[in-house]
């Protein structure tokens, strides 16, 4: 039915093929946009790069929020947030702000605070960890963005001043010009939104008017919070507990140190009555205060600047005050003495935060578990 091939036809075909092939030509590998300043070439990483994954959206593909876009309201007037949903409270220079997980799930980073005293709150939905770092006003740009990379499933931030990459859970720059720099910390308290609202009725809560169109009623990662599965491999899969068990952990020292002495306390094991656990981790005397029903846990250093080591007892029904010491001082959830002989004193922060167990166990391989382990 069809004629045999001849050279002219083949020539036409090859011309067309060559034309279309040329349109697809390109070089391999990553490259920088020639119209903008290229990011620095990274030659050194402090973590195993085989466990750094590109999450898909790309650098800034998950948009960090900036202070100028944010609108806060009294938590008493915000009705769009379920009181049982988790939120993060930050106390910075006496001002308490509440950031609901519902919003943090979609943005992961909030660059907040006044221009002369900024700070950055980051929250990683895949590791359930929230930390806050003070901004460095000596830098022209002290804000952070979402790098689009994950290490052990944990958020890697980048600072917009130098493009250095920062590990959220190590709170350390792991690559770039600021490599090995350790961030300062601001105390955060994670709890149910309703708990924080009731504790701090005069605080300000972040509203959903963020400048972005996102489904803040929805959770972006399906059944991830309950399932045993992870989206990315981790360096150390510690199976002593269900991977998504929420724990508050404390580690000794700073920087990237997988074998740092560390210990975790499961939030579900504190019980309905507040517990204050006077404990010792490494050479540090600490108090761990937690309440399962309130979904709250914090860890402070029991040793004061004068060398006194306090012993604490839980305090019920007086939120945000959560414990007393043997001297009669009452302390609130941010570690501030609110009444008694040491009124106005401040307990020292510790290297601690809440996270999913798998993430803590992956970042800190020598972790002791406080409560009885019931298995995954």
């Amino acid at each position: 039915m069809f004629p045999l091939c001849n050279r002219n036809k083949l020539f036409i075909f090859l011309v067309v093929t060559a034309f279309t092939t040329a349109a697809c030509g390109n070089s391999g590998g990553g490259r920088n946009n020639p119209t903008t300043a290229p990011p620095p070439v990274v030659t050194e990483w402090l973590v195993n790069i085989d466990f750094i994954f590109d999450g898909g959206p790309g650098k800034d593909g998950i948009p960090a929020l900036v202070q100028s876009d944010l609108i806060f309201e009294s938590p008493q007037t915000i009705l769009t947030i379920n009181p049982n949903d988790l939120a993060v409270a930050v106390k910075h220079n006496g001002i308490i702000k509440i950031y609901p997980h519902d919003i943090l799930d979609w943005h992961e980073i909030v660059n907040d605070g006044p221009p002369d005293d900024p700070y950055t709150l980051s929250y990683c939905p895949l590791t359930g960890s929230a930390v806050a770092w003070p901004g460095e006003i000596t830098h022209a740009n002290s804000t952070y963005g979402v790098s689009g990379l994950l290490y052990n499933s944990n958020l890697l931030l980048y600072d917009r001043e130098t493009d250095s990459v920062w590990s959220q859970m190590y709170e350390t720059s792991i690559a770039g010009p600021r490599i090995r720099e350790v961030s300062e910390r601001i105390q955060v308290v994670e709890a149910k939104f309703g708990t924080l609202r009731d504790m701090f009725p005069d605080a300000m809560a972040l509203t959903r008017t963020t400048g972005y169109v996102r489904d803040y009623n929805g959770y972006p990662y399906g059944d991830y919070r309950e399932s045993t599965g992870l989206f990315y491999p981790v360096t150390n899969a510690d199976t002593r507990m269900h991977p998504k068990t929420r724990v508050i952990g404390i580690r000794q020292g700073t920087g990237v140190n997988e074998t740092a002495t560390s210990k975790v306390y499961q939030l579900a094991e504190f019980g309905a009555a507040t517990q204050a656990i006077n404990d010792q981790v490494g050479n540090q005397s600490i108090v761990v205060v937690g309440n399962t029903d309130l979904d709250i846990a914090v860890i402070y250093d029991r040793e004061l600047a004068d060398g006194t080591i306090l012993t604490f007892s839980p305090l019920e029904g007086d939120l945000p005050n959560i414990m007393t010491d043997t001297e009669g001082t009452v302390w609130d959830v941010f570690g501030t003495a609110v009444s008694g002989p040491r009124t106005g004193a401040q307990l020292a922060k510790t290297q601690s935060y809440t996270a999913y167990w798998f993430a803590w166990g992956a970042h800190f391989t020598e972790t002791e578990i406080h409560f009885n382990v019931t298995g995954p």
Partner: protein
Amino acid sequence: MKSLTKLTAGIVLLAAHMLAASAWAQTCSCATVPLLGTMQSASPDDSQWFLATTYEFRDISDLVAGSNTIPDQTGRDRTSQAMVVELSRGLTDKWSISGLVSLVDHERKISGMTDSASGLGDGLFMVKYSPATISLYSKNTFSFGLGGQIPLGEDDAKNNGLTLAEDLQPSTGAYGGLIWAYYARALNDSGGAQVYGSTSYAYNGENDRDYRFGNSLTVTLGTSYQTQTPWGFSLELFYRDSDRDERDSVEIPNTGGSWVDIVPTVQYHVTEALALKASGKIPISRDLNDALQFSTKYAVSLSALYLFGGGD
């Protein structure tokens, strides 16, 4: 029928067959891109060769929440380009084999950073059986195919030493299986007007990083018209339903879903055996899994189709 009339009818049939044999399946920045999106359904006759080369450009910048397109607001630019070369050979009047190789370029630009990877992608082979073909004596074409996907290219492309996301890799890095069926019916004696439909199911295996793109089902319904001039046209609806991707058997949220696209095509016959074809793809309905996904905004493709060999 006079020989000239026969020849004209033959040309129309060939043209109509090439025209109706347009998109087989199209995926969105995931497994088997761009193979399924560009594979032709033509099954050459005994001893004939069919050579097709297709360039495709895909803009994957729509941010979709379920069925709604929402503003991205991140300035992201995500594109994919592909060149696919397909060679088919008729073994008998009913049996044929096809092989495809792809050259792909994935690019993601955002926040002053461009991540890209290009090179050899996946390959595909297929054995086709066509018990009936539209001809002067038949108004129906039936074709069935069974094939496999072979990872030919790089699947661990890196930027700055870090492995790029799975959807940016030139190759899926995984073997897969494909099953396909095609039906066309002539609406007139010349066979120049046809309605056609096809369906396919693609199974994707797991790559070395334990990642597996979701299996997908496709259904295409279309109509084509080959004029008595070199020009022909087709219009089809293309439906695809894809499972979520998995890593180590854990479903990855924000992957998979269902898409309905409309695909208009125009074809021009340079000679009786050589045709050029241009297609567009516009999404008309989407229902994507979970909270948020990037999806194809539009795609355009240009193909050159060439049939040679065999006897009269």
